[in-house]
Every structure is written in C-alpha cells, then in structure tokens.
C-alpha cells in the first residue's frame, strides 16, 4: 500500500511517499514560489518519478501546510500541527515537546506517546523569529543562508538584539555592523533573539517535557539549535531532514485513513 503526504509551506513544499511495508520510499523538497498549486503538483510528480509510479498507484494523499487547501489531488487536508505531531512521533516515539520553526510560523506542540496533540501555541501573525526572519538578516549581512548557523557558532561576544519586529531588528543589526561588531557575534545575537521568542511560546504551553524535538527548516541552522538548547537547558533531537516531518506525518495519517 502506497500513500503520499504533501506539505505546502510558505517557503518550501515537500512531498513524501510512504509504503506500508517499506516505510519512507522517497521525498522531495522544492521552493513554493508564487503558485502553491503548481508547486504541490510538481512536488508530487517529482517524488513519484524516481520509483516510476503514477498518482493512480497511490491509495491516499493528505495535504498539509498553509497551502494545504490548494492541493486539489489530495483526498483530505490536515493542519500542520497534527501532521508534525504524527511525523515526530513516528521518528521519535519518546518525544513530548516539539519546536517547529518554518518559513513564517513558529509552533510549539506538546504531544503524548501516541502522537496526539495535547496543546499547541503558534506565533501571532508577525513572522519575527521564523525562517523568513533569518533570510532577511542573512541578506542584510550578505551571508549565504546555509552558512549563517555555522558562522555564528564562532561567536566571542554575547550581543543582544532586542527588537522583536523583523524590520526593526534588521535596522538594529545594521547599527551593530556600523559600530564595528563582528559578524559571528551579530549572527549569534540574532539566533539568541529567535530562541528567546520561542521560549515565550514554550512557557505558554506549560514548559518543556523531554524528549524535545526540533523540526522545520530552521532546525538546519546550527546557531538557532545551539541558542535554543542553551535557553531550554536540554538537548534537541533533530531528524537528518527536519523539513520533511510535516509531509511524513501527513503520509502516516494517509496510511491510517486508507486501512
């Protein structure tokens, strides 16, 4: 039995194939761009191409992410909160707290041993502290997005970025550059600001319960991971491909639905 999960996010779209017997068959990650419907179709076709399958070979498809209603080929849409919880539970059965930082959302989810959501909190409509926030800062500092995390780990000075708003934080960062502060110190300050903002959400869900899993694209940023681990005082477990957790959860729900 073959099913698919598709996660149409604000920046990237992921499609994942899951076989009842073999587990994850394959996945793909693409840029969502301006047409989320097209991105969803392209992601699905791409992931089906490698094993040489067709959409008709799929028993069930579930879409998730902020563009979930745009995937007309999906049988059902489920929110990313529920899918991330399912995906994390599959990968880490002992997970109880999930921190997911994506392109425009930060979510903190508390789950039980079966992957059921007990409580969740999301950032308000401001995208401060999300993937987009890091993108803006990387651009302002002229650094490759992929290198932002590792560079920041070389910090020597503990700088604080106090602005919460992305636009104001950007001007604060530019002021730090003008004052001659080192790049790695500024970058770490940015990551610390993200960790602080995330801590606010964690507190609102009732605090940390181990194990703590981090997912979403920002989990690929080693600087944010380090700053968050320091802030919560616990290690974070991260899957090798943290961006696919939502699509994986969608696929697992699809499997449950098809049996």
């Amino acid at each position, binding site marked *: 039995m073959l099913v698919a999960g598709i996660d149409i996010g604000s920046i990237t779209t992921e499609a994942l194939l899951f076989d009842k017997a073999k587990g994850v068959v394959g996945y793909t990650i693409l840029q969502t761009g301006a047409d989320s419907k097209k991105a969803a179709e392209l992601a699905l076709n791409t992931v089906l191409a490698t094993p040489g399958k067709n959409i008709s070979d799929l028993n069930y498809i579930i879409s998730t992410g*902020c563009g979930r209603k745009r995937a007309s080929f999906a049988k059902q849409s*489920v*929110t*990313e*909160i*529920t899918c991330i919880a399912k995906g994390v539970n599959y990968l880490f059965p002992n997970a109880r707290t999930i921190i997911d930082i994506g392109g425009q959302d930060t979510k903190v989810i508390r789950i039980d041993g079966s992957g*059921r*959501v*007990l*409580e*969740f909190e*999301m950032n*308000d*409509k401001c995208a401060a502290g999300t993937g987009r926030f890091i993108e803006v800062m990387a651009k302002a500092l002229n650094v490759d997005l992929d290198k932002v995390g590792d560079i920041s780990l070389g910090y020597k000075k503990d700088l604080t970025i106090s602005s919460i708003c992305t636009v104001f934080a950007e001007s604060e960062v530019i002021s730090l550059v003008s004052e001659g502060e080192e790049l790695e110190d500024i970058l770490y300050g940015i990551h610390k600001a993200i960790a602080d903002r995330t801590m606010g959400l964690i507190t609102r869900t009732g605090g940390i319960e181990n194990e703590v899993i981090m997912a979403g694209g920002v989990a690929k940023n080693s600087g944010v991971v380090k700053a968050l681990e320091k802030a919560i005082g616990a290690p974070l477990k991260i899957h090798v491909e943290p961006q696919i957790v939502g699509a994986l959860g969608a696929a697992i729900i699809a499997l449950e639905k098809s049996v």
Partner: protein
Amino acid sequence: MEPQTNGLATAEKYYNQYGSRAKDLKESGKKVIGYLSALGPVEILTAAGVIPLRLKGNVSEAITKGDAYMETVVCPFVRNVFDAAVKGRYDFLDGMVLPHQCDSIDRTNDVWSDVLKLPYWHFLNVPHVTDDPSIEFMKEILRVFIGTLEKFTGTTITDEAIAQAVKAHNENRRLMRELYALRTANPPLISGTEMMKVLVAAMSLPVQESSALIESVTKEVKERPSSKDMRKRIMIIGDQIDDVAVIEAIEGAGAWLVMDDLSIGSKMYWQDVDATQDPVQGIAERYLRKLKIPTTYVADGNNYEENLEARFGHMKKYIDEFKVDGVILFIYKYCDPYGFEVPAVKSFIESTGASVLYLEDEYSTSALPRAKTRIEAFLEMIA
C-alpha cells in the same frame, strides 16, 4: 410591524442591511439613538420612545478614515465602528450614547462627539466597582441620562414607561433564551452562523419587532426537519463578535458553535432586570452587578477560587448544559480588560475538562486565514 413568516430570512436581511429598519423608522418620524457595548441601557431608550440601535462595524472593511483621529493602540473594534461612523454609516442617527465600558471608549468619547456632531450625545459614566455606593452612583447617572433624553425628546419619561420597557426587554431576553435552548440538542436545531445573524438582526430592531423576529425564528427552526450531522460542539467567549466570518471559520472546519459568552449574545440575554419599585434600581443592578463583563466586576469571594467561580461560574454551567467539547477564547488585540483575564479564564475552563483555544486577533477578516489553521488544529486535537 412587518408580517414575519420566515424568521431566518428576515434575520438574514437585517443582518446584511444592518440598521435598515431603524433607518426606515427614522424616515417615518421616529428618533434613533445608537449605543455602544452591552452596557447601553436599552430599557431607558425604549422608554424614551426612541429606537435603540447597537453600533457595530464591518470586519471586511479596512479602517481608512478613522485612523486620522485615533491611534492604532485604541481597541480595533472601537476604531472600526468609529471609522464606519466617520464614513457616514450612522449619519441618519439622532444621537449616540457611549457607556464607559473601557478606556478605549472613555478616552475617545470626545473624538466621537466632536467628529460626528450628532444632535444628541451622551457619555454614560458607568462605574467599575459594584459595591452599594456604586449602585447609588449608577442610579444617579441613569437619572442624568434620563434627563438628557427628556430634554432632547421634549417628553417626560415616566416610571411607568420605564417599567413597561423593562417588561418588554425582559420578554425579549426570555424569548432569546428560549431560542438558545434549541442549541442544547445534538445536533443543535440552529447553527452558530444562523444564530449570529439572528443576534445581529435582533439588536438592530425596536424591542417588539426584535421579539417577534426571535419568536418567528424559534418556530421555524423547531418545525424544519432536524439534521443528523453530529459534530464537535464549540463555545466562543469574547466581547463584540458581530459577524459570521469567525463563526463560519469554526463551522466550516467541521464543528457546531452551540453557545457563546459574547457581549451581543448570552451576555445580553441571560440576565433580566428585576421589576423594582423604583425601576431605575433594577436597571442599575442588572447592568452593574448581573452583567459579567471584565470592567464592571469586583470579586467579593473569600479567596481567589471563589472569585473565579463568581466571575466565570456561569461558563461552567454553559459547558455542561450545552454539552460543550471545546472553548474558543477570541480576544481583540489591545483589549486590556479581556486580555488581563485570559490566563484566569483559560485555567478555569480547563479545570472543567474542556479544552481551550486562545486566539488574539483583529476586528477584521484580514488575519482570519491564520486563525483558521489554529481552529482546524484545535478541532483535530479534540476530535
């Protein structure tokens, strides 16, 4: 009075053309006075022979003119209503009465009256503590209010007229509670979306017409074939949510909205005015003590738990009576009075076993897509 054969369709009409009936009555020579918030003493307006019209904004309309007079720190609901008024929506009114519910009303009252320049204006200085001296104060400010209306209309408002109005509004409340009771059924006999339209229509009509409309809706929904569509049952808590957009987001995600603690909903209809010898006494007590809104309640329990029970205990009853599975706390941004209470109300409701989703949002549909994700996730969580 218009013959009402189809209550739901009539409610829908008045919902879509808000205030149209009051406008017609104005053209036929009646006086219409708009009021803001659940603290507007409608009994007195009715007794004065004027048509009370609860003021509302339009969540689908961006604030374009109002912000020239009010900073964005003012409550988004107040700003939206004011913006609508500046754009001429309430130009047909003879006047407005703004009760002192919160700072956003109190501190902008001068701006409203100066910009709108309506023939009649009154700021009702409702006190914020509910002890005996405050009741005396409340009675006095109601008498002052009566005096200004007498001067404006040129007629005396007798105790007898007030007592009659009290009776009519109590009857209106009883009829609305009767309609609410049909929502205790599973599935409810009337959807949350339909109910919202009835609530909005009801607050735009003279009391007798409002009562006739409610009766007509009750009859209609009782008689129509019942649905077998079983869904999770949601209650919403907030101040003035007066548009179906939020309700459609909840019901569109696969739940029924079966109960509310809103200032145009159960808050308006659950508490009657006692028929006291001095009719103003009963009105003062109802608005100051029985109406449980965050700015006019002072806890008088012996400890924090008792205070919470006194303040929110009615919500527990609603959860039980209306078989509520989940509660959505929908609070407007920059709303201090409701904002202060969020942690307390959330933990109080959670202690009953019901889950709570707290949403802080604008009085606008622009941010609704993000709220929808949370509402859907919440329903998946309690599924």
